[in-house]
């Protein structure tokens, strides 16, 4: 049951606007309400163009509408970045490619501090 838990505020934004799922679907170019329902229930993740459509309609950023999806992507990417940083740190600081490795490490450090 837990995997169906809604982790987004799409329904809140839609209901606040007084729109039905069908009306929202029409605004996004869908023929029916099925896709909206699946997004609201977190059954499927919206395509990038659809997510941008939600952003335009509700004037709220994608992380604001889909916080859990954003948090999940963020966690995974951060973990991969940490792994990449560790791998780069273990490489020799000499020879060909040392400059680019150094640049990547500097960028990662700067990114962390911002």
């Amino acid at each position, binding site marked *: 049951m837990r995997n169906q838990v809604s982790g987004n505020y799409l329904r809140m934004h839609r*209901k606040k606007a007084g729109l039905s799922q069908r009306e929202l679907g029409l605004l996004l170019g869908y023929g029916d309400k099925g896709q909206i329902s699946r997004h609201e229930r977190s059954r499927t993740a919206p395509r990038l163009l659809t997510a941008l459509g939600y952003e335009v309609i509700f004037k709220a950023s994608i992380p604001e509408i889909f916080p859990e999806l954003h948090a999940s992507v963020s966690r995974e990417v951060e973990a991969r970045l940490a792994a990449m940083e560790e791998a780069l740190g273990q490489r020799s600081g000499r020879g060909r490619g040392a400059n680019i490795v150094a640049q990547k490490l500097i960028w990662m450090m700067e990114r962390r501090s911002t």
Partner: protein
Amino acid sequence: MDDGAAKHVIHGRGETDNRSGPFVSRVLALEVRASKFGFAVFDEPAKVIDWGVRAFDVRASREATVAKRIGFILDQYAPFHIVVLRRRNDPKSKRNGDLSLALKVISREMQARGVKPTWLTTQAVKRFFCPHGFKTKHEIATVLAGWFEELSWRLPLRRKPWQSERHNMVIFDAVALGVVFFATQDASLKASEH
């Protein structure tokens, strides 16, 4: 009407606790009637993420309908706390059996999902709102529509004495219950700190 103090109770704790994730304080407030229930889902004291009325006035399969309606909400939102209004049992009421059945089914569905409800009384709701000058249901609903602007368009018109209660009012009853629950939590938190 002075709504400052009451508003502070809910808006003072509006920040999300990042250490525990955004949905850890999810609360479902339920106002159960004989043939329908109103619900409000809170992610924070000042953030209502879903609300509505679900009717189950089906004679033939009332138990199954109640279970289906409440089960959908419980599965979709997986609330950490559920707050339900405890109504006084009125033996003279013709709908008493229907209400008892609905509450029984709702309790069973909650138990099946391992969530224990918190029961609040109408007196607790009155105790919270009356000191701030909100005595009638409509006054309470009006102030709630001001606090939660997403609900303002659902605010029912003030009913005439000969009219029955508006369908939407049950949503505001549920929201009021949620607000009182957060205020109670806030008070007990402060008490434990001292």
